[in-house]
């Protein structure tokens, strides 16, 4: 009864052994290892064998906590930040350096701009053309699908997630064109976008988030995607939605594509403020304050504004007014310094005491030429002060008065 048992036992054991071997084979030869070996060969040929030590091995990831993304692209795309790999084929080609300076890898990762599935460690999954992943790599494959020649066009959707509030973003030509069209054609006449606009058409502020299933594709030709729907709709609204009142603006295909990209970029994004383009992190000056500072910078006292003296000191005769007046008016510095510190102005600037010692050694560092310039200008300021006082004294003199004229100020 038990004769066949051993045969079965060993066959099952064999099957388990084979499968375990397959699993281990998969473990020792992942796809990325091949690419990493290739890259090392490339580095050895181009830059010499010693440079191989600088090439990291194993899974690489860039974890951008603020954006809640983790990107493992650099496991295969190892040449991103290397110089001298501009003309090599992918995946080793280096990234255009200029934009990388403004968007360093450690702070942005890759997928926030390029799309794709950052979690993945094999090419097909990483490039995102798999089921259940809605953020494919915005490169050639997607552009070809929509017959857009510029393979950097689709990516601009992601640029606009942060650059949404720019009027114009360098390098995002489709988006810039679309934003111009929005202003020209006045989409806001019927659509609300960012709290402004009409209510005849739907609110478009976050239309990029709308689920693709919500669109009606019955009258559409071609691929059934949300992006395609928007492009078709922009080119001929009535063909897609018969009961619409949206006029046909006669957009050519490039305009329609640009607007389609813009519209798909209008999404809810949780991005920390410091990533948003155009956001200032200081209180804004009022119009009067800005105007005043502009005048002071164009006037005679510009030097004291530029060097920062005006933060504490006014120089009234040169038109420089300090907001706080912590220190005395420098128009009188020539005599003031003498009476307070017992030194000439030049000596004081070279050997300051008290608060000025701290200020002139840490916050405001003046070169010898600048000190001379300061002294000269302060002398001019003082002269002006003297003239003013003489004039005001003279003005008082012209009025009939019983009291004798006051004597001129003593030096």
């Amino acid at each position, binding site marked *: 009864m038990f004769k066949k048992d051993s045969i*079965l*036992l060993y066959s099952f054991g064999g*099957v388990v052994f084979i499968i375990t071997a397959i699993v281990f084979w998969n*473990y020792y030869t992942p796809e990325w290892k091949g690419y990493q070996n290739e890259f090392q060969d490339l580095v050895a040929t181009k830059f010499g064998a010693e440079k191989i030590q600088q090439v990291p091995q194993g899974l690489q990831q860039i974890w951008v906590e603020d954006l809640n993304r983790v990107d493992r692209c650099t496991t295969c795309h190892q040449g991103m930040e290397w110089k001298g790999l501009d003309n090599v084929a992918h995946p080793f080609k280096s990234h255009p350096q200029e934009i990388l300076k403004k968007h360093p890898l450690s702070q942005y990762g890759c997928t926030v701009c390029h799309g794709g599935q950052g*979690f993945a460690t094999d090419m097909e999954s990483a490039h995102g053309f798999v089921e*259940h992943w809605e953020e494919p790599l915005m490169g050639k494959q997607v552009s070809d699908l929509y017959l857009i020649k510029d393979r950097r066009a689709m990516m601009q959707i992601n640029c606009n997630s942060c650059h949404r509030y720019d009027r114009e973003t360098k390098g995002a030509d489709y988006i810039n064109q679309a934003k111009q069209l929005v202003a020209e054609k006045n989409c806001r006449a019927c659509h609300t976008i960012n709290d402004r606009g009409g209510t005849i058409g739907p609110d478009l502020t976050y239309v990029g988030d709308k689920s693709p*299933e919500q669109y009606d594709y019955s009258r559409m030709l071609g691929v059934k995607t949300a*992006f395609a729907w928007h492009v078709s709709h922009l080119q001929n609204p009535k063909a897609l939605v018969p009961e619409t009142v949206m006029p046909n603006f006669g957009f050519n295909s490039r305009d329609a594509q640009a607007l389609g990209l813009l519209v798909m970029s209008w999404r809810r994004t949780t991005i920390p403020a410091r990533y948003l383009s155009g956001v200032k992190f200081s209180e804004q000056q009022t119009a009067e304050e800005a105007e005043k500072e502009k005048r002071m910078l164009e006037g005679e006292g510009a030097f004291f504004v530029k060097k920062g003296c005006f933060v504490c000191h006014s120089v009234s005769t040169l038109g420089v007014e300090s907001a706080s007046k912590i220190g005395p008016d420098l128009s009188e510095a020539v005599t003031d310094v003498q009476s307070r510190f017992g030194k000439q102005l030049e000596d004081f600037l070279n050997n300051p005491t008290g608060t000025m010692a701290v200020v002139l050694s840490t916050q405001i560092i003046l070169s010898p030429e600048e000190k001379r310039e300061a002294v000269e200008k302060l002398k001019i300021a003082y002269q002006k002060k003297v003239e003013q006082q003489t004039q005001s004294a003279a003005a008082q003199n012209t009025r009939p008065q019983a009291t004798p004229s006051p004597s001129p100020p003593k030096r």
Partner: protein
Amino acid sequence: MATKPTVWARLKNQRATWEKIKWTWVPETNREAGDSVVRNFLLHWFPAKVTRQSLSWNYSFWLGTISAVLFLILIVTGIPLMFLYVPSVERAYLSVKDIEFTVSFGWFLRGLHRVSAHLMVAVVFLHLVRVFLAGAYKNGTAAKQNRPLNWIIGITLLLLTLLLSFTGYLLPWDQLAYWAITVGTNIASAAPVVGEQLRFFLLGGSTIDQNTLIRFYVLHCFFLPLGVLLLFSYHMWRVRKDGGLACVDQLSLEQKKENAQPIKSKTYSLLGIASGRTVHVETSIVDEDKHTVASSPNLTRRLLLVSLGTLAVSVVLTVLFRAPLEAAANPTVTPNPAKAPWYFLWLQELVTLTTFTIGGITINGALIGGIFVPGILVVAAIVWPYLDKSPVSTVGVWMARARRRQNIVFLIIVAAILVLTIVGTYLRGPYWDFYWPWQSWPTMPRKF
């Protein structure tokens, strides 16, 4: 030269130690075979001898063993997964993606866990079918048997298995998980009187959120497996107490008609004796030598075989069918179609078909198809052994003639469940429309 003898002596000693460990598993005499079950901790679970028929492939198909082995695989794969998975709504999906892509052998662990889970549901169900069709839920002639109780324990184990699968299903926190649990808990809420409160308690709130996830996680990793382990131990103990598999009772009934030689010794399998008489004590009835074999090594060898076979099938399926992961859970977008896990699809199909409007009153299909029908089935199953009037001669007999009617009814119910499952799995497409297998589903639109 004094070292040589001691080295040799030490070597011989190793041999002896190895013999000491090995002998209970590969006994060489009958005496050793009998002794091994009392001298080995692991082997003491078993009786010293088992009937040949109990060991046969085509009586039980070893389905019970297969489910136990699958459960063991689930525990062994589940433990590293517990370390790697994070049960927080913000990180659950990310942790599963990490398991798939960055953890060494992660895809294999997760895949094996999933394959074993699906197989276990199927095998436990098949085990139930086998037990019913062979009348193995019935008592035989020996004293103090209580197979109906064991049948009830088995039903409970089936329900626990389904619950384990259900709680595990939510954990990846992808669209499939989220909406499958939405459907499932909404069916639960259709229960009369306590439905809403039950749902609130299960979810830890009114929506499927962090509370739900952590509750399901703790249930899935601790309480439900603990329940299964405890009940399983009880289940096996009852099998021993009842004298073994039901086919053994057949043997004693048949033997009563045969002439068997009286045997001198009475006490073979000490551990098999209940208070009273079991098959093994009735030595004048059962011809042990003709019908039984030693547990060690025959039972143990077959157990090893079945374990290895189960493992083999599971790992092959794991490598062939990778575990899927859909898009991250999105409470605002329902996938089309939104389906429950396959073992509940028959319920979902029922729920679709049983919404009735009588007069002006509409009865929700969730109530009929989701609560009443499965409820009635479970109650009927539990109660049936006590209502069964078939003769004791049908215990442990496959498709006994005296039980033909109940077997047919049972098979019809099983077939209905299977058909509904197949319809729900393969023939229902977007919007739950009916699609023949050769009709293609419309492609779902995407963003780009």
